[in-house]
């Protein structure tokens, strides 16, 4: 009986502990889903093990010394010891040895993770903007934003630069992190190993809405990815001119929208995200809001209010025009 109670008690503790640690952390660096993520995680686990070991030994030694040699009333004054050469050599060499053990796999991983992309890798050009991500697939002639679609199991090469200030592309589970710098080209090469949606965000402070510059990497099966490519390559949808969406297209075409946004066959702006297939994306505004009618309407009506510093100005549209533009954008699958 007692025994059962004790086992139950410890099992409960264990469950609570596991539940506490097993929460859902979509942006965790500790759950790698690519070869790149795995090699980094492997290296970090090794370093972490050494760190814990050193921590226990040195903090333990400190604590032991402090307790053992605590002052006692009436004790003899301690002997003056000025040093010990053999000890000095020993505790210089010990950290050197540990660091060599850490440095060797570090250098190996540096060269392994920064190797050029293998032949047949899918190239995606990443361009950082204040405060959203642009993705261009040169071989597929696709331009999209914020949501990076890639096939599982195929090497991906991100070729990255910035249109304005320095950003940093960080998708912890699959792509780790690399700065995105104007005038420089940086690369991330990785092969995702599991289908899923992995979130990330800009990691280098880039101004007012740095916090609102999110992204996701959508790893798909090969067939799903190919279907997505076909959809994206199609010309933008052409709604019936008499429908609400059709009226929206007319409003869009005569408004300031066209100055910044591209919709194939309609407008040629390149400052903001390409909207040719905006309805195929799940979020808007640099991953900040869901892509639904309400959020789209609020966003178009007053973007600076919803996203600090937003480059997109307030659109002074009548409610009817706003409804129409939203309907049009929702039709651009």
């Amino acid at each position, binding site marked *: 009986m007692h025994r059962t109670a004790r086992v139950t008690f410890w099992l409960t503790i264990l469950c609570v502990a596991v539940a506490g640690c097993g929460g859902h952390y979509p942006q965790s660096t500790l759950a790698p889903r690519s070869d790149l993520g795995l090699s980094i995680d492997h290296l970090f686990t090794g370093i972490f093990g050494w760190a814990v070991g050193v921590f226990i030994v040195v903090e333990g030694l400190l604590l032991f010394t402090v307790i053992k040699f*605590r002052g006692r009333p009436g004790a003899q004054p301690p002997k003056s010891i000025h040093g010990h050469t053999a000890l000095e050599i020993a505790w210089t060499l010990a950290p050197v040895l540990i660091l060599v053990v850490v*440095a060797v796999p*570090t250098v190996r991983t540096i060269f392994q993770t920064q190797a050029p992309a293998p032949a047949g890798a899918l190239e995606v050009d990443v361009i950082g903007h204040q405060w959203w991500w642009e993705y261009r697939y040169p071989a597929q002639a696709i331009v999209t934003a914020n949501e990076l679609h890639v096939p599982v199991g195929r090497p991906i090469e991100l070729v990255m630069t910035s249109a304005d200030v320095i950003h940093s592309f960080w998708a912890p589970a699959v792509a780790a992190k690399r700065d995105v710098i104007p005038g420089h080209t940086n690369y991330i090469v990785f092969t995702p190993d599991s289908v899923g949606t992995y979130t990330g965000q800009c990691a280098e402070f880039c*101004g007012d809405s740095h916090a609102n510059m999110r992204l996701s990497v959508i790893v798909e099966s090969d067939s799903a990815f190919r279907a997505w490519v076909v959809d994206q390559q199609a010309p933008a949808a052409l709604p019936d001119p008499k429908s609400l969406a059709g009226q929206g297209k007319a409003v869009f075409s005569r408004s300031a929208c066209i100055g910044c946004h591209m919709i194939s066959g309609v407008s040629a702006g390149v400052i903001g995200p390409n909207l040719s297939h905006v309805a195929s994306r799940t979020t808007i505004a640099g991953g900040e809001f869901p892509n639904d009618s309400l959020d789209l309407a609020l966003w178009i009506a007053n973007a600076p209010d919803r996203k600090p510093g937003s480059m997109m100005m307030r659109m002074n549209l009548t409610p009817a025009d706003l409804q129409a533009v939203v309907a049009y954008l929702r039709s651009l699958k």
Partner: protein
Amino acid sequence: MSERTGWKSWLTTVDHKRIGLLYFWTAFGFFLVGGLEALLIRTQLARPENHLISAQTYNQLFTMHGTTMVFLALMPLSVALFNYIVPLQIGARDVAFPRLNAFSYWVFLLGGLFMNLSWFVGPLFHAGTLSVAPNGGWFGYANLTERQYSPGPNIDFWLLGLQILGVASLAGGFNFIVTILNLRAPGMKMMRLPVFSWMTLVTSFLIITAFPVITVALAFLMFDRFFGTHFYLTSAGGDPVLWQHLFWIFGHPEVYILILPAMGVVSEVLPTFSRKPLFGYTVVVYSGVLIGFLGWGVWSHHMFSVGLGPIADSVFSATTMLIAVPTGVKIFNWIGTLWGGQIRFTTAMLFSLGFIAMFIIGGLSGVSHASPPADLQQTDTYYVVAHIHYVLFGGTVLGLFSGMYYWWPKMTGRKLSEPLGQVHFWLTLVGMNLAFFPMHLIGLLGMPRRIYTYPAELGVGNLNLVSTVGAFLIAVALLVFIFNLWRTRTRGEIAGNDPWGGATLEWSIPSPPPVHNFDAIPTVHGRMPLWSEPEKMKQHGPVGHMHVPPGSIWPFVAACGLPLLASSLLTHRLWLVFVGGAVLLVGIYRWAFEPFEV
């Protein structure tokens, strides 16, 4: 001899002890300001999707928290101890250049006020907000800080303020190098110099070599912003990465400028309260010097995500790991000092022991981002925020508190309350671990730094709440300390010359020391003169006339010229250039030709 009372005497003082106190109170004031900024940051982050503070204000808060803590609080708190203690430790009557010392202080004060004025002067710049405080981060990465991306006066306040403060640091650095090299008491060879003075020397060399680099970097930025050059602009062939190299070539030695003085304090406190000489004095000194040298070869470890290539990454990784060796050696020698001692757990000792315990954690997390691939996940996340706070709070701040409890009796004649000190220590230790330990996890679980809000889906809301509670606990601990300072003014136990049984020269003279410090400059024959020959170190009253430098108003006047010059650039007013230049030149001229009172 000049006046010793009244506010005028403080304005004209050139006494290193009074300047030390001025540094202390000013830096402590800025420390509270930086702490308040931290509390606002933590309040905002206590919950996900919190909209208490706007993005713009938050960006100003974290920029000014970092800038204030590094340049206006921790560095000058160390300088306060340099000022008060180093001349006493080496047996000198003052620093080598007393009026330059006063100039350093006034430039520091005015530079700090200049930068913080930006919180209140928005309307002068038609900014539409009260505050135009700096908002580009304490590291101010170009090209975000260029006029094109930061059009307001915010970055101008930051770069001009830092330029002013740099003058104070450089003047102070030269002063302490000359003081320590030239004004040591007879017999005090370099290898008999107390370790705190040694670390002051190393720090001063780092200051005079590191600050010119940021001065150049800031001058480039100033030219870009005001005169249309393109040092950091890609459009005309410049490169924003140049800023990062220059900033971190300064920035990493700066880290050691912040930590070495605290290591010096610990190396004084541990021997006193274990009643044993420092274990491996030579090794501790040389590892401090080595850390100072190696600190110049590691800057690119702040830039592992920049894409410098595998060879550069490997080299900087190796040099960074190498620096862990002398640091580890110091820790082992401190433990060696404790070993076999009679440890007295005074508040000063607790803070020094806390320093070692916390610095080990900061050092170990540091090794994990010395490895570039691992750093690719950690850099710019809360994991690094945790690391720097274990080093700069767990290290520097605990070390400085240790120094304050240790030397407060020397500086004021009264001991701080021990019971209140113990409460202060334990609250600080618990508070800092609650505040900063969860940040390791927050970072590893995917939260970047410098974001004013985060989505609930990240799953780090509760960890952030714990961190915020910890931050407020640190604030409570600080209130206990302030109460202790206030209470000690009238009710603190009278200290006498040597309340702790210290071994170095400062304990041979009255507390607070007379204006001339030593009645007769002692001759020393060892590292711990008060332990080896206490009788010879006794003071016997002043012998004849003591020359002490007279006060002077001109360092203060000269210092006023610098913020005026900065304001001229800030407000585009040419006439202010002439006013500021005239004040500076007249101040220096009168200072140079001031008649000597003897």
